[in-house]
């Protein structure tokens, strides 16, 4: 059976005494992991009566509880809906309402955010708290450590099918509201297999997972394939460069995957090199292109370590791989499709274009999601005839089969690998009564790649308080969406039809941008 349960059951069968998971407080063998997953799955059935196909929201940072919940929910045919811990309460409310979750597992680190919107979620019936929270809800520890839990819960016999939905992974909402990409067990397994082929994970690997497990890359391209090969997963709850370096050293970490901003922050530390960190053998860049200079700066510190780049998206996970050898000749490429992934560059009519010609990148394969939750029109728009998925990314392919990413078809800002639509920030700023108009766009940032810059037209007779705009955004948006720069302008450039000319905003010579 091509389901997620096979992954942890096989790891338990083949390597019962191997340490599979290391957190801040625990080291769990695969036998211990499997026992806890079974107990938890059992409680989901007997305490909550979770039925196949029901959504269970998972609000937790990188932790053992996240991994246990993920496998336990999917083991009983439930759909796990991981929620990004960095979201603001209102964003969390939107996601939980959209997914229609009746059940939620909430870690103490996210409890205050969750509690502030709980009353606005009438569909949510049961809550399982992880850690110390003041509420009359079920307790994760009690369920998992219950001594009299059935050893072989009957519910596990109702194993899900490979094509059943296992995960609801929300996109970052680059062109509007986030959408829940539905991934089946088979999709997740295929994505995991792709990652194994691309990165060559080994049984003796120790991977430090720095990216949030709620992110598609961390979940199915790092955690899942590492459990498949019986490696060891070190969960990093929160990124701190010095702390990560000490973990790599203490746990003999052999590989980790991160966004370019993380690598740049690590490069500040002189001890981020092979001499101090001899266990490292593989570094993987994710979510945004790494500049050639940073790539070679890292290679200079880790001459024998493989540094690979990749390209992927929530709906299809990791699709390409750019090895060190390829990067030497084609540093600006996103690489070649992983075996098992089909990719094509097409024109507006959906016809493949010639090498070197720009078009939209399409992907196809068993790793591609089933569509968007409760969004039939968007799902129909996502897929093209022949099972191809439209990525919304523009690029080209060269004569050697390497792909190149040019950007999104629509404007997005990519801040430290996290992508979002400027309109989200614009809508937030427009909530201020002092603001008449606003336009937001991404501007280069040396560490994060891009950050938001807001051009604000304040209403007549009000004091142009740029700091007030930043304060408002900080209060209501997650950190990566808060503008680093706010500029007060008299008017925004528009064409004769009144349409905003975003390109002109990027040029300082734009006559409409007369500063107050």
């Amino acid at each position, binding site marked *: 059976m091509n389901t997620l349960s096979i992954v942890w059951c096989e790891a338990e069968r083949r390597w019962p005494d191997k340490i599979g998971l290391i957190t801040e407080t625990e080291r769990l063998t695969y036998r211990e992991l499997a026992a806890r997953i079974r107990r938890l799955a059992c409680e989901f059935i007997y305490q909550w009566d979770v039925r196949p196909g029901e959504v269970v929201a998972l609000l937790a940072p990188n932790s053992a509880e996240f991994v246990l919940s993920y496998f336990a929910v999917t083991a009983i045919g439930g759909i796990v809906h991981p929620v990004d811990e960095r979201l603001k309460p209102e964003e969390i409310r939107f996601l939980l309402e959209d997914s229609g979750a009746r059940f939620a597992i909430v870690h103490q680190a996210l409890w205050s955010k969750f509690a502030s919107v709980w009353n606005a979620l009438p569909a949510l019936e049961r809550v399982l708290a992880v850690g110390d929270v003041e509420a009359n809800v079920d307790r994760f520890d009690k369920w998992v450590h219950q001594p009299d839990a059935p050893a072989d819960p009957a519910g596990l016999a109702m194993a899900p099918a490979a094509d059943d939905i296992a995960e609801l992974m929300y996109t970052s909402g680059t062109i509007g509201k986030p959408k829940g990409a539905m991934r089946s067990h088979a999709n997740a397994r295929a994505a995991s297999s792709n990652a194994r082929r691309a990165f060559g994970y080994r049984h003796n690997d120790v991977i430090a997972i720095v990216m949030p497990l709620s992110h598609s890359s961390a979940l199915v391209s790092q955690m899942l394939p590492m459990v498949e090969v019986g490696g060891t997963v070190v969960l990093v709850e929160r990124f701190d460069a010095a702390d990560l370096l000490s973990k790599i050293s203490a746990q003999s970490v052999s590989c980790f995957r991160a966004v370019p*901003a993380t690598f740049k922050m690590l490069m*500040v530390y002189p001890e981020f090199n092979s001499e101090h960190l001899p266990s490292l053998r593989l570094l993987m860049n994710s979510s945004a292109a790494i500049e050639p200079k940073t790539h070679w700066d890292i290679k200079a510190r880790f001459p024998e370590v493989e540094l690979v780049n990749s390209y992927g998206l929530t709906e299809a996970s990791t699709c390409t791989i750019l090895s060190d050898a390829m990067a030497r000749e084609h540093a600006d490429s996103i690489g070649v499709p992983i075996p098992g992934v089909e990719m094509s560059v097409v024109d507006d009519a959906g016809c493949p274009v010639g090498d070197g010609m720009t078009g939209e990148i399409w992907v196809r394969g068993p790793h591609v999601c089933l569509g968007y939750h409760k969004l039939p029109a968007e799902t129909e728009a996502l897929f093209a005839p022949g099972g191809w998925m439209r990525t919304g990314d523009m690029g080209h392919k060269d004569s050697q089969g390497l792909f190149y990413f040019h950007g999104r078809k629509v404007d997005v800002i990519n801040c430290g690998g996290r992508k979002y639509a400027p309109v989200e920030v614009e809508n937030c700023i427009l909530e201020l009564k002092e603001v008449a108009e606003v336009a937001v766009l991404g501007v280069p940032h040396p560490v994060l790649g891009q950050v938001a810059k807001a051009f604000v037209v304040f209403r007549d007779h009000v004091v142009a308080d740029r700091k007030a705009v930043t304060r408002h955004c*900080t*209060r209501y948006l997650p950190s990566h969406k808060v503008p*680093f720069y706010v500029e007060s302008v008299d008017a925004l450039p528009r064409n004769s039809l009144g349409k905003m000319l975003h390109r002109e905003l990027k040029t300082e010579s734009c006559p409409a941008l007369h500063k107050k």
Partner: protein
Amino acid sequence: MANTHVRVIEFLSGVLQVDIPTDIDDLHRREFSDWDSINHLRLIMELEEVLGVSLDDEQAADLLSSRQIEALFIRHGVTLPGEKSS
């Protein structure tokens, strides 16, 4: 320098838009989820504006607590509005 301490806490509260009790002795980044790596970069930018200096990468990476920021303020002889220079 008690006044500087209060002002630094207020500065942090302002940049991160969260309520931090001013009687807190020290606030470390690791204990405070809103002070994430992106907000840290924005904080550095705001600090550079207030101090009128450019902080290099090592200095920025070392500013991990309210006390360290306080020391930076004192080192640069900066007084925030409402505080007298000593």
